[in-house]
Protein backbone atom coordinates (compact mmCIF):
# COMPACT_ATOMS: atom_id res chain seq x y z
CA UNK A 1 0.00 0.00 0.00
CA UNK A 2 1.63 3.20 -1.10
CA UNK A 3 1.71 6.46 0.76
CA UNK A 4 1.99 4.90 4.20
CA UNK A 5 4.59 7.43 5.20
CA UNK A 6 1.98 10.16 4.88
CA UNK A 7 -0.17 8.46 7.45
CA UNK A 8 2.53 7.53 9.87
CA UNK A 9 3.56 10.55 11.83
CA UNK A 10 0.73 12.72 10.52
CA UNK A 11 -1.12 13.11 13.78
CA UNK A 12 -0.35 12.04 17.29
CA UNK A 13 -2.68 9.42 18.72
CA UNK A 14 -2.01 7.43 21.85
CA UNK A 15 1.49 6.59 20.67
CA UNK A 16 3.57 9.28 19.04
CA UNK A 17 3.55 8.89 15.31
CA UNK A 18 0.27 6.99 15.04
CA UNK A 19 -2.69 8.46 13.17
CA UNK A 20 -6.13 7.79 14.58
CA UNK A 21 -9.00 8.32 12.19
CA UNK A 22 -12.62 8.91 13.18
CA UNK A 23 -14.33 5.56 13.04
CA UNK A 24 -16.64 6.25 10.13
CA UNK A 25 -18.96 3.31 9.43
CA UNK A 26 -21.15 1.85 6.73
CA UNK A 27 -22.81 -1.45 5.92
CA UNK A 28 -23.61 -3.75 3.04
CA UNK A 29 -26.27 -6.24 4.01
CA UNK A 30 -28.00 -8.90 1.98
CA UNK A 31 -31.64 -9.79 2.50
CA UNK A 32 -33.62 -12.87 1.50
CA UNK A 33 -36.41 -12.49 -1.05
CA UNK A 34 -38.66 -14.85 -2.96
CA UNK A 35 -42.18 -14.89 -4.37
CA UNK A 36 -44.81 -16.74 -2.36
CA UNK A 37 -47.61 -18.46 -4.18
CA UNK A 38 -45.49 -19.92 -6.96
CA UNK A 39 -44.19 -23.44 -7.35
CA UNK A 40 -40.66 -22.21 -8.11
CA UNK A 41 -38.41 -20.07 -5.91
CA UNK A 42 -38.13 -17.01 -8.19
CA UNK A 43 -35.69 -15.24 -5.88
CA UNK A 44 -34.09 -13.34 -8.74
CA UNK A 45 -37.42 -12.06 -10.04
CA UNK A 46 -38.29 -10.93 -6.51
CA UNK A 47 -34.98 -9.05 -6.35
CA UNK A 48 -35.56 -7.30 -9.67
CA UNK A 49 -39.12 -6.33 -8.75
CA UNK A 50 -37.90 -4.86 -5.45
CA UNK A 51 -34.97 -3.07 -7.03
CA UNK A 52 -37.24 -1.50 -9.65
CA UNK A 53 -39.15 0.22 -6.83
CA UNK A 54 -36.12 1.58 -4.96
CA UNK A 55 -35.86 5.37 -5.25
CA UNK A 56 -32.52 6.26 -6.75
CA UNK A 57 -30.34 6.73 -9.76
CA UNK A 58 -29.08 3.68 -11.65
CA UNK A 59 -25.33 3.26 -11.84
CA UNK A 60 -23.56 0.97 -14.22
CA UNK A 61 -21.62 -1.85 -12.67
CA UNK A 62 -19.24 -2.98 -15.33
CA UNK A 63 -15.90 -4.49 -14.43
CA UNK A 64 -13.41 -5.04 -17.22
CA UNK A 65 -16.19 -4.72 -19.76
CA UNK A 66 -18.42 -7.32 -18.09
CA UNK A 67 -21.43 -7.01 -15.86
CA UNK A 68 -20.57 -8.10 -12.34
CA UNK A 69 -23.02 -10.81 -11.07
CA UNK A 70 -22.42 -9.55 -7.54
CA UNK A 71 -23.45 -6.01 -8.47
CA UNK A 72 -26.55 -6.07 -10.65
CA UNK A 73 -28.97 -3.17 -11.25
CA UNK A 74 -27.26 -0.92 -8.70
CA UNK A 75 -28.84 2.36 -7.74
CA UNK A 76 -27.53 5.16 -5.60
CA UNK A 77 -30.36 6.32 -3.39
CA UNK A 78 -31.41 9.83 -2.50
CA UNK A 79 -30.52 9.31 1.17
CA UNK A 80 -26.86 8.51 0.41
CA UNK A 81 -27.29 4.75 0.50
CA UNK A 82 -27.21 2.29 -2.39
CA UNK A 83 -29.03 -0.89 -3.35
CA UNK A 84 -28.39 -3.66 -5.84
CA UNK A 85 -28.72 -7.40 -6.43
CA UNK A 86 -25.94 -9.70 -5.31
CA UNK A 87 -26.11 -13.37 -6.32
CA UNK A 88 -29.88 -13.48 -6.04
CA UNK A 89 -30.14 -11.45 -2.84
CA UNK A 90 -31.33 -7.83 -2.47
CA UNK A 91 -28.45 -5.88 -0.98
CA UNK A 92 -28.58 -2.52 0.75
CA UNK A 93 -25.47 -0.46 1.46
CA UNK A 94 -25.82 2.30 4.00
CA UNK A 95 -24.69 5.88 3.70
CA UNK A 96 -21.48 6.61 5.56
CA UNK A 97 -21.99 7.74 9.17
CA UNK A 98 -19.70 8.85 11.96
CA UNK A 99 -21.97 8.18 14.91
CA UNK A 100 -23.09 4.64 15.70
CA UNK A 101 -26.47 6.12 16.59
CA UNK A 102 -26.71 7.64 13.11
CA UNK A 103 -25.74 4.22 11.75
CA UNK A 104 -28.71 2.65 13.57
CA UNK A 105 -31.01 5.32 12.12
CA UNK A 106 -29.66 4.85 8.57
CA UNK A 107 -30.05 1.06 8.87
CA UNK A 108 -33.64 1.50 10.01
CA UNK A 109 -34.30 4.07 7.28
CA UNK A 110 -32.93 1.75 4.59
CA UNK A 111 -35.08 -1.10 5.88
CA UNK A 112 -38.08 1.21 5.50
CA UNK A 113 -37.10 1.91 1.91
CA UNK A 114 -37.03 -1.80 1.05
CA UNK A 115 -40.27 -2.32 2.95
CA UNK A 116 -41.85 0.42 0.85
CA UNK A 117 -40.39 -1.13 -2.32
CA UNK A 118 -41.92 -4.47 -1.30
CA UNK A 119 -45.36 -2.92 -0.89
CA UNK A 120 -45.12 -1.23 -4.28
CA UNK A 121 -43.84 -4.40 -5.97
CA UNK A 122 -46.53 -6.55 -4.36
CA UNK A 123 -49.22 -4.20 -5.67
CA UNK A 124 -48.13 -5.18 -9.19
CA UNK A 125 -48.33 -8.93 -8.56
CA UNK A 126 -51.46 -11.10 -8.85
CA UNK A 127 -53.43 -11.19 -5.60
CA UNK A 128 -52.37 -14.76 -4.82
CA UNK A 129 -48.66 -13.91 -5.05
CA UNK A 130 -46.46 -11.74 -2.86
CA UNK A 131 -42.81 -11.07 -2.27
CA UNK A 132 -41.52 -12.39 1.03
CA UNK A 133 -38.59 -10.37 2.35
CA UNK A 134 -36.49 -11.29 5.35
CA UNK A 135 -33.56 -9.69 7.17
CA UNK A 136 -31.75 -12.89 8.09
CA UNK A 137 -28.57 -14.73 7.15
CA UNK A 138 -29.37 -18.35 6.43
CA UNK A 139 -32.04 -20.57 4.89
CA UNK A 140 -31.20 -23.42 7.26
CA UNK A 141 -30.19 -25.51 4.24
CA UNK A 142 -26.50 -24.71 4.21
CA UNK A 143 -26.67 -21.35 2.43
CA UNK A 144 -25.57 -18.14 4.13
CA UNK A 145 -25.62 -14.53 3.08
CA UNK A 146 -23.96 -11.52 4.52
CA UNK A 147 -24.33 -8.61 6.86
CA UNK A 148 -21.13 -6.66 6.46
CA UNK A 149 -20.29 -3.64 8.58
CA UNK A 150 -17.47 -1.41 7.44
CA UNK A 151 -15.09 0.73 9.48
CA UNK A 152 -12.63 3.41 8.45
CA UNK A 153 -9.12 2.64 9.61
CA UNK A 154 -5.67 3.76 8.57
CA UNK A 155 -3.71 1.74 6.01
CA UNK A 156 -1.20 1.16 8.81
CA UNK A 157 -3.85 -0.41 11.03
CA UNK A 158 -5.17 -2.44 8.09
CA UNK A 159 -1.72 -4.00 7.76
CA UNK A 160 -1.62 -4.75 11.50
CA UNK A 161 -4.98 -6.56 11.19
CA UNK A 162 -4.88 -8.11 7.74
CA UNK A 163 -1.36 -7.67 6.37
CA UNK A 164 1.38 -10.26 6.04
CA UNK A 165 2.53 -9.91 9.69
CA UNK A 166 -0.74 -8.99 11.43
CA UNK A 167 -0.05 -8.57 15.15
CA UNK A 168 -3.58 -7.21 15.74
CA UNK A 169 -5.30 -10.06 13.88
CA UNK A 170 -5.73 -12.37 16.92
CA UNK A 171 -7.28 -9.54 18.95
CA UNK A 172 -9.76 -8.58 16.24
CA UNK A 173 -10.70 -12.24 15.60
CA UNK A 174 -11.14 -12.88 19.33
CA UNK A 175 -13.16 -9.72 19.80
CA UNK A 176 -15.52 -10.73 16.97
CA UNK A 177 -15.94 -14.21 18.46
CA UNK A 178 -16.78 -12.71 21.84
CA UNK A 179 -19.47 -10.51 20.26
CA UNK A 180 -21.62 -13.58 19.47
CA UNK A 181 -23.77 -13.22 22.64
CA UNK A 182 -24.48 -9.59 21.69
CA UNK A 183 -24.84 -9.66 17.93
CA UNK A 184 -26.24 -13.16 17.30
CA UNK A 185 -29.77 -13.26 15.95
CA UNK A 186 -30.42 -16.86 16.98
CA UNK A 187 -30.74 -20.00 14.90
CA UNK A 188 -32.53 -23.33 15.20
CA UNK A 189 -30.20 -26.20 14.44
CA UNK A 190 -26.72 -26.34 12.96
CA UNK A 191 -25.30 -26.03 9.45
CA UNK A 192 -22.17 -26.61 7.42
CA UNK A 193 -21.13 -29.75 9.30
CA UNK A 194 -20.93 -27.97 12.67
CA UNK A 195 -21.80 -29.81 15.91
CA UNK A 196 -25.56 -30.28 16.46
CA UNK A 197 -27.51 -27.59 18.29
CA UNK A 198 -31.16 -27.21 19.22
CA UNK A 199 -30.84 -23.42 19.34
CA UNK A 200 -27.68 -21.38 18.96
CA UNK A 201 -26.92 -17.68 19.34
CA UNK A 202 -25.47 -16.92 15.89
CA UNK A 203 -26.86 -17.56 12.42
CA UNK A 204 -23.48 -17.20 10.80
CA UNK A 205 -20.96 -18.74 13.22
CA UNK A 206 -21.24 -22.22 11.63
CA UNK A 207 -20.25 -20.79 8.26
CA UNK A 208 -16.81 -19.46 9.25
CA UNK A 209 -13.93 -21.82 8.65
CA UNK A 210 -10.72 -19.83 8.42
CA UNK A 211 -9.05 -17.04 10.36
CA UNK A 212 -8.17 -14.53 7.65
CA UNK A 213 -8.70 -14.42 3.89
CA UNK A 214 -10.03 -12.19 1.14
CA UNK A 215 -13.01 -14.28 -0.02
CA UNK A 216 -16.53 -14.03 1.38
CA UNK A 217 -18.49 -16.75 -0.43
CA UNK A 218 -16.56 -19.90 0.46
CA UNK A 219 -14.36 -21.04 3.34
CA UNK A 220 -15.40 -17.81 5.01
CA UNK A 221 -12.78 -16.01 7.08
CA UNK A 222 -13.47 -14.60 10.52
CA UNK A 223 -11.41 -11.57 9.52
CA UNK A 224 -11.88 -10.47 5.94
CA UNK A 225 -8.66 -9.20 4.37
CA UNK A 226 -10.29 -7.56 1.35
CA UNK A 227 -8.23 -4.45 0.65
CA UNK A 228 -10.86 -2.30 -1.02
CA UNK A 229 -10.86 1.14 0.60
CA UNK A 230 -13.49 2.77 -1.68
CA UNK A 231 -11.56 5.94 -0.90
CA UNK A 232 -8.07 7.34 -1.33
CA UNK A 233 -6.14 4.20 -0.53
CA UNK A 234 -3.00 6.11 0.33
CA UNK A 235 -4.70 7.58 3.37
CA UNK A 236 -7.66 5.39 4.19
CA UNK A 237 -8.48 1.73 4.53
CA UNK A 238 -11.76 -0.05 5.18
CA UNK A 239 -12.11 -2.98 7.53
CA UNK A 240 -14.84 -5.13 5.98
CA UNK A 241 -16.29 -7.01 8.96
CA UNK A 242 -18.26 -9.93 7.53
CA UNK A 243 -18.83 -11.96 10.68
CA UNK A 244 -21.89 -10.35 12.28
CA UNK A 245 -25.53 -11.44 11.93
CA UNK A 246 -28.18 -9.06 10.58
CA UNK A 247 -29.83 -7.38 13.55
CA UNK A 248 -33.29 -5.88 13.89
CA UNK A 249 -33.03 -4.76 17.52
CA UNK A 250 -31.66 -1.23 17.88
CA UNK A 251 -29.45 -2.08 20.86
CA UNK A 252 -27.84 -5.03 19.05
CA UNK A 253 -27.22 -2.86 15.98
CA UNK A 254 -25.79 -0.06 18.08
CA UNK A 255 -23.41 -2.36 19.92
CA UNK A 256 -22.41 -4.24 16.76
CA UNK A 257 -21.14 -0.96 15.36
CA UNK A 258 -20.33 1.20 18.40
CA UNK A 259 -18.34 -1.39 20.32
CA UNK A 260 -16.37 -2.30 17.19
CA UNK A 261 -15.64 1.41 16.68
CA UNK A 262 -14.25 1.60 20.22
CA UNK A 263 -12.10 -1.52 19.89
CA UNK A 264 -10.68 -0.39 16.54
CA UNK A 265 -9.98 3.07 17.96
CA UNK A 266 -8.11 1.51 20.86
CA UNK A 267 -6.10 -0.72 18.52
CA UNK A 268 -5.32 2.09 16.09
CA UNK A 269 -4.13 4.40 18.85
CA UNK A 270 -1.86 1.74 20.33
CA UNK A 271 -3.92 1.72 23.54
CA UNK A 272 -4.04 -2.08 23.63
CA UNK A 273 -0.42 -2.70 22.65
CA UNK A 274 1.16 -4.60 25.52
CA UNK A 275 -2.22 -6.18 26.34
CA UNK A 276 -2.62 -8.27 23.21
CA UNK A 277 -1.99 -11.74 24.70
CA UNK A 278 -4.67 -11.18 27.32
CA UNK A 279 -7.21 -10.34 24.61
CA UNK A 280 -6.31 -13.03 22.07
CA UNK A 281 -7.78 -16.51 21.90
CA UNK A 282 -5.47 -19.38 21.04
CA UNK A 283 -7.94 -20.58 18.41
CA UNK A 284 -10.69 -18.03 17.63
CA UNK A 285 -12.22 -20.02 14.75
CA UNK A 286 -12.64 -23.18 16.82
CA UNK A 287 -14.23 -21.10 19.57
CA UNK A 288 -17.06 -19.88 17.33
CA UNK A 289 -19.17 -23.05 17.39
CA UNK A 290 -18.58 -23.40 21.13
CA UNK A 291 -19.61 -19.86 22.07
CA UNK A 292 -22.53 -19.79 19.62
CA UNK A 293 -23.98 -22.76 21.53
CA UNK A 294 -23.35 -21.28 24.98
CA UNK A 295 -26.65 -19.76 26.09
CA UNK A 296 -25.60 -19.86 29.74
CA UNK A 297 -22.29 -18.06 29.06
CA UNK A 298 -20.25 -20.70 30.84
CA UNK A 299 -18.05 -22.33 28.19
CA UNK A 300 -14.43 -21.23 28.36
CA UNK A 301 -11.68 -20.96 25.76
CA UNK A 302 -7.98 -20.45 26.29
CA UNK A 303 -6.26 -17.14 25.68
CA UNK A 304 -2.70 -16.75 24.46
CA UNK A 305 -1.86 -15.58 27.99
CA UNK A 306 -2.93 -19.00 29.32
CA UNK A 307 -6.13 -17.87 31.09
CA UNK A 308 -9.47 -19.44 30.25
CA UNK A 309 -12.38 -17.09 29.59
CA UNK A 310 -16.03 -17.16 28.58
CA UNK A 311 -17.23 -14.87 25.82
CA UNK A 312 -18.56 -12.50 28.49
CA UNK A 313 -15.26 -12.58 30.40
CA UNK A 314 -13.49 -11.52 27.23
CA UNK A 315 -16.10 -8.85 26.54
CA UNK A 316 -15.51 -7.44 30.02
CA UNK A 317 -11.78 -7.28 29.33
CA UNK A 318 -12.44 -5.16 26.25
CA UNK A 319 -15.04 -3.17 28.16
CA UNK A 320 -12.66 -2.30 30.99
CA UNK A 321 -9.94 -1.19 28.57
CA UNK A 322 -12.56 0.91 26.79
CA UNK A 323 -13.70 2.48 30.09
CA UNK A 324 -10.21 3.81 30.68
CA UNK A 325 -9.79 4.82 27.04
CA UNK A 326 -13.02 6.81 27.05
CA UNK A 327 -12.38 8.28 30.50
CA UNK A 328 -9.12 9.82 29.28
CA UNK A 329 -10.95 11.57 26.45
CA UNK A 330 -9.16 9.67 23.70
CA UNK A 331 -12.41 8.54 22.08
CA UNK A 332 -13.63 12.10 21.71
CA UNK A 333 -14.37 12.86 18.05
CA UNK A 334 -12.98 9.45 17.09
CA UNK A 335 -16.04 7.58 18.33
CA UNK A 336 -18.96 10.00 18.71
CA UNK A 337 -21.26 9.36 21.67
CA UNK A 338 -18.76 6.90 23.16
CA UNK A 339 -20.13 7.29 26.68
CA UNK A 340 -23.65 6.44 25.58
CA UNK A 341 -22.36 3.39 23.72
CA UNK A 342 -20.52 2.31 26.88
CA UNK A 343 -23.69 2.55 28.94
CA UNK A 344 -25.64 0.31 26.61
CA UNK A 345 -22.68 -2.08 26.43
CA UNK A 346 -22.36 -2.40 30.19
CA UNK A 347 -26.07 -2.85 30.66
CA UNK A 348 -26.18 -5.71 28.15
CA UNK A 349 -23.07 -7.36 29.62
CA UNK A 350 -24.63 -7.18 33.08
CA UNK A 351 -27.83 -8.84 31.86
CA UNK A 352 -25.83 -11.53 30.05
CA UNK A 353 -23.71 -12.15 33.13
CA UNK A 354 -26.88 -12.53 35.19
CA UNK A 355 -28.38 -14.85 32.54
CA UNK A 356 -31.35 -12.50 32.56
CA UNK A 357 -32.71 -13.54 29.18
CA UNK A 358 -36.08 -11.85 29.75
CA UNK A 359 -34.24 -8.58 30.39
CA UNK A 360 -32.53 -8.97 27.01
CA UNK A 361 -35.79 -9.30 25.07
CA UNK A 362 -36.14 -6.29 22.79
CA UNK A 363 -32.42 -5.53 23.09
CA UNK A 364 -30.75 -8.57 21.55
CA UNK A 365 -32.26 -10.49 18.66
CA UNK A 366 -31.37 -14.02 19.79
CA UNK A 367 -32.99 -13.45 23.18
CA UNK A 368 -36.06 -11.93 21.57
CA UNK A 369 -36.38 -14.84 19.14
CA UNK A 370 -35.89 -17.38 21.93
CA UNK A 371 -38.65 -15.68 23.93
CA UNK A 372 -40.95 -15.92 20.90
CA UNK A 373 -40.14 -19.59 20.45
CA UNK A 374 -40.97 -20.23 24.10
CA UNK A 375 -44.24 -18.32 23.66
CA UNK A 376 -45.06 -20.45 20.59
CA UNK A 377 -44.28 -23.61 22.56
CA UNK A 378 -46.77 -22.58 25.25
CA UNK A 379 -49.44 -21.50 22.75
CA UNK A 380 -49.13 -24.22 20.16
CA UNK A 381 -47.00 -26.90 21.71
CA UNK A 382 -44.21 -26.47 19.20
CA UNK A 383 -40.87 -27.74 20.44
CA UNK A 384 -37.67 -26.27 19.06
CA UNK A 385 -37.23 -29.12 16.59
CA UNK A 386 -40.73 -28.78 15.12
CA UNK A 387 -41.54 -27.27 11.70
CA UNK A 388 -43.78 -24.73 13.46
CA UNK A 389 -40.87 -23.45 15.54
CA UNK A 390 -38.84 -23.04 12.37
CA UNK A 391 -41.61 -20.93 10.87
CA UNK A 392 -41.76 -18.75 13.98
CA UNK A 393 -38.00 -18.27 13.67
CA UNK A 394 -38.36 -17.22 10.01
CA UNK A 395 -41.24 -14.88 10.75
CA UNK A 396 -39.14 -13.09 13.38
CA UNK A 397 -36.98 -11.82 10.48
CA UNK A 398 -39.82 -10.97 8.10
CA UNK A 399 -39.84 -7.36 6.92
CA UNK A 400 -43.60 -7.57 6.35
CA UNK A 401 -44.79 -4.99 8.89
CA UNK A 402 -48.18 -6.70 9.26
CA UNK A 403 -46.99 -10.30 9.65
CA UNK A 404 -43.41 -9.98 10.88
CA UNK A 405 -43.18 -10.87 14.58
CA UNK A 406 -40.41 -8.35 15.32
CA UNK A 407 -42.58 -5.48 14.11
CA UNK A 408 -45.47 -6.54 16.31
CA UNK A 409 -43.17 -6.72 19.33
CA UNK A 410 -42.10 -3.23 18.44
CA UNK A 411 -45.68 -1.99 18.25
CA UNK A 412 -46.17 -3.60 21.67
CA UNK A 413 -43.38 -1.43 23.05
CA UNK A 414 -41.17 -4.42 23.82
CA UNK A 415 -38.24 -3.27 21.67
CA UNK A 416 -35.86 -0.74 23.17
CA UNK A 417 -35.21 2.08 20.72
CA UNK A 418 -31.96 4.03 20.78
CA UNK A 419 -32.78 6.55 18.03
CA UNK A 420 -35.84 8.69 17.59
CA UNK A 421 -38.50 8.36 14.94
CA UNK A 422 -37.48 11.82 13.77
CA UNK A 423 -33.89 10.66 13.10
CA UNK A 424 -35.07 7.66 11.13
CA UNK A 425 -37.59 9.67 9.13
CA UNK A 426 -34.90 12.20 8.25
CA UNK A 427 -32.53 9.52 6.98
CA UNK A 428 -35.22 8.03 4.74
CA UNK A 429 -34.97 11.13 2.57
CA UNK A 430 -31.69 12.80 3.48
CA UNK A 431 -28.07 11.75 3.91
CA UNK A 432 -25.93 12.22 7.01
CA UNK A 433 -24.53 15.75 6.91
CA UNK A 434 -21.09 14.97 8.27
CA UNK A 435 -19.70 12.53 5.70
CA UNK A 436 -19.20 12.40 1.93
CA UNK A 437 -22.72 10.95 1.61
CA UNK A 438 -23.85 14.57 1.81
CA UNK A 439 -21.81 15.51 -1.26
CA UNK A 440 -22.99 12.45 -3.20
CA UNK A 441 -26.67 13.25 -2.61
CA UNK A 442 -26.23 16.95 -3.27
CA UNK A 443 -24.97 16.08 -6.75
CA UNK A 444 -27.64 13.39 -7.24
CA UNK A 445 -30.39 15.87 -6.48
CA UNK A 446 -29.02 18.84 -8.43
CA UNK A 447 -31.45 19.50 -11.32
CA UNK A 448 -28.70 21.14 -13.38
CA UNK A 449 -26.53 18.06 -13.29
CA UNK A 450 -26.71 14.96 -15.43
CA UNK A 451 -24.81 12.14 -13.79
CA UNK A 452 -23.09 9.87 -16.26
CA UNK A 453 -21.76 7.32 -13.79
CA UNK A 454 -20.78 7.08 -10.17
CA UNK A 455 -19.38 4.90 -7.42
CA UNK A 456 -18.80 5.43 -3.71
CA UNK A 457 -15.70 7.53 -4.22
CA UNK A 458 -16.25 9.28 -7.56
CA UNK A 459 -18.93 10.84 -9.72
CA UNK A 460 -18.78 11.78 -13.39
CA UNK A 461 -21.39 14.29 -14.42
CA UNK A 462 -22.28 16.97 -16.94
CA UNK A 463 -23.31 20.35 -15.62
CA UNK A 464 -25.28 22.66 -17.81
CA UNK A 465 -25.36 26.42 -17.35
CA UNK A 466 -26.88 29.13 -19.54
CA UNK A 467 -23.67 29.44 -21.48
CA UNK A 468 -21.92 26.09 -21.40
CA UNK A 469 -22.09 22.36 -20.88
CA UNK A 470 -19.13 20.96 -18.96
CA UNK A 471 -18.21 17.36 -18.11
CA UNK A 472 -16.69 16.93 -14.68
CA UNK A 473 -15.18 14.09 -12.70
CA UNK A 474 -15.25 14.54 -8.92
CA UNK A 475 -13.36 12.31 -6.56
CA UNK A 476 -14.87 11.70 -3.14
CA UNK A 477 -11.67 10.12 -1.84
CA UNK A 478 -12.05 11.41 1.71
CA UNK A 479 -15.08 9.71 3.27
CA UNK A 480 -14.99 12.20 6.15
CA UNK A 481 -15.43 15.20 3.90
CA UNK A 482 -19.00 16.33 3.15
CA UNK A 483 -17.71 19.19 1.01
CA UNK A 484 -14.94 18.23 -1.40
CA UNK A 485 -14.77 21.78 -2.73
CA UNK A 486 -17.61 21.54 -5.23
CA UNK A 487 -20.25 23.51 -3.37
CA UNK A 488 -20.61 27.17 -2.59
CA UNK A 489 -21.53 26.85 1.06
CA UNK A 490 -20.60 24.14 3.56
CA UNK A 491 -23.46 22.05 4.94
CA UNK A 492 -24.79 22.50 8.46
CA UNK A 493 -23.64 20.19 11.23
CA UNK A 494 -20.24 19.82 9.67
CA UNK A 495 -18.25 18.30 12.48
CA UNK A 496 -15.04 17.61 10.67
CA UNK A 497 -13.05 19.53 8.19
CA UNK A 498 -10.23 18.78 5.92
CA UNK A 499 -7.14 20.42 7.26
CA UNK A 500 -3.52 20.26 6.23
CA UNK A 501 -4.51 19.77 2.63
CA UNK A 502 -0.94 20.44 1.70
CA UNK A 503 -0.19 17.06 3.22
CA UNK A 504 -3.23 15.51 1.57
CA UNK A 505 -4.52 14.28 4.90
CA UNK A 506 -7.83 14.84 6.61
CA UNK A 507 -7.26 15.48 10.26
CA UNK A 508 -9.42 16.47 13.14
CA UNK A 509 -10.35 19.99 14.09
CA UNK A 510 -8.56 20.41 17.37
Amino acid sequence: MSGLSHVLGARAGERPGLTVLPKLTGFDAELAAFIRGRPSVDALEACHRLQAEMPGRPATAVVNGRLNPQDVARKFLYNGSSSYIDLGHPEICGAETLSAFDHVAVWEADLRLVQRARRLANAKLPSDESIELLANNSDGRGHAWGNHRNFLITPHEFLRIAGPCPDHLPVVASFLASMIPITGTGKLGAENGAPPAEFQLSQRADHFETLKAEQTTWSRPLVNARDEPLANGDLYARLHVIFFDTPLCHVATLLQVGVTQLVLAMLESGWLDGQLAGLSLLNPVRTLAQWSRDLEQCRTARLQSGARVTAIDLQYRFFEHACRFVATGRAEEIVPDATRIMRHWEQVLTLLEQENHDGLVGKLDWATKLWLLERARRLRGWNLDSPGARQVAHMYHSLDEARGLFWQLRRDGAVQEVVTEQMVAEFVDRPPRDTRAYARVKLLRDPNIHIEDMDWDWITYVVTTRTERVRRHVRLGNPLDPDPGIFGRPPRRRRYRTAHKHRGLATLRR
Partner: protein
Amino acid sequence: MTNEKRIDERATATVTVSHQEANGTAKPVIGSHRLDEMIERIGDLELPPLGTGE
Protein backbone atom coordinates in the same frame (compact mmCIF):
# COMPACT_ATOMS: atom_id res chain seq x y z
CA MET B 1 -12.71 2.76 35.94
CA THR B 2 -13.52 2.70 39.62
CA ASN B 3 -16.28 0.52 40.98
CA GLU B 4 -18.18 3.64 42.01
CA LYS B 5 -18.12 4.98 38.48
CA ARG B 6 -19.25 1.67 37.03
CA ILE B 7 -22.12 1.53 39.48
CA ASP B 8 -23.02 5.12 38.67
CA GLU B 9 -23.05 4.40 34.95
CA ARG B 10 -25.12 1.28 35.52
CA ALA B 11 -27.67 3.33 37.47
CA THR B 12 -27.86 5.85 34.65
CA ALA B 13 -28.25 3.14 32.06
CA THR B 14 -31.10 1.58 34.02
CA VAL B 15 -33.15 4.71 33.50
CA THR B 16 -33.16 4.13 29.78
CA VAL B 17 -34.93 0.79 30.12
CA SER B 18 -37.47 1.75 32.74
CA HIS B 19 -40.18 1.63 30.08
CA GLN B 20 -39.93 -2.13 30.19
CA GLU B 21 -40.23 -2.35 33.94
CA ALA B 22 -43.91 -1.97 34.61
CA ASN B 23 -45.99 -2.66 37.74
CA GLY B 24 -43.07 -2.05 40.03
CA THR B 25 -41.40 -5.35 39.19
CA ALA B 26 -38.16 -6.09 37.41
CA LYS B 27 -39.95 -8.43 35.00
CA PRO B 28 -40.35 -6.88 31.57
CA VAL B 29 -43.87 -6.71 30.20
CA ILE B 30 -43.77 -8.08 26.69
CA GLY B 31 -46.13 -9.63 24.25
CA SER B 32 -49.74 -8.89 23.40
CA HIS B 33 -52.95 -10.52 22.36
CA ARG B 34 -52.22 -9.45 18.79
CA LEU B 35 -48.80 -11.12 18.91
CA ASP B 36 -50.37 -14.32 20.15
CA GLU B 37 -52.87 -14.18 17.30
CA MET B 38 -50.02 -13.82 14.81
CA ILE B 39 -48.25 -16.83 16.29
CA GLU B 40 -51.50 -18.78 16.14
CA ARG B 41 -51.82 -18.02 12.44
CA ILE B 42 -48.25 -18.94 11.48
CA GLY B 43 -47.96 -22.01 9.42
CA ASP B 44 -47.12 -21.53 5.79
CA LEU B 45 -43.68 -19.99 5.52
CA GLU B 46 -41.12 -22.61 4.61
CA LEU B 47 -37.95 -20.97 3.35
CA PRO B 48 -36.90 -22.37 -0.03
CA PRO B 49 -33.21 -22.84 -0.81
CA LEU B 50 -32.07 -19.27 -1.38
CA GLY B 51 -28.49 -19.69 -2.45
CA THR B 52 -25.23 -18.45 -1.05
CA GLY B 53 -24.73 -14.71 -1.18
CA GLU B 54 -21.99 -12.26 -0.18
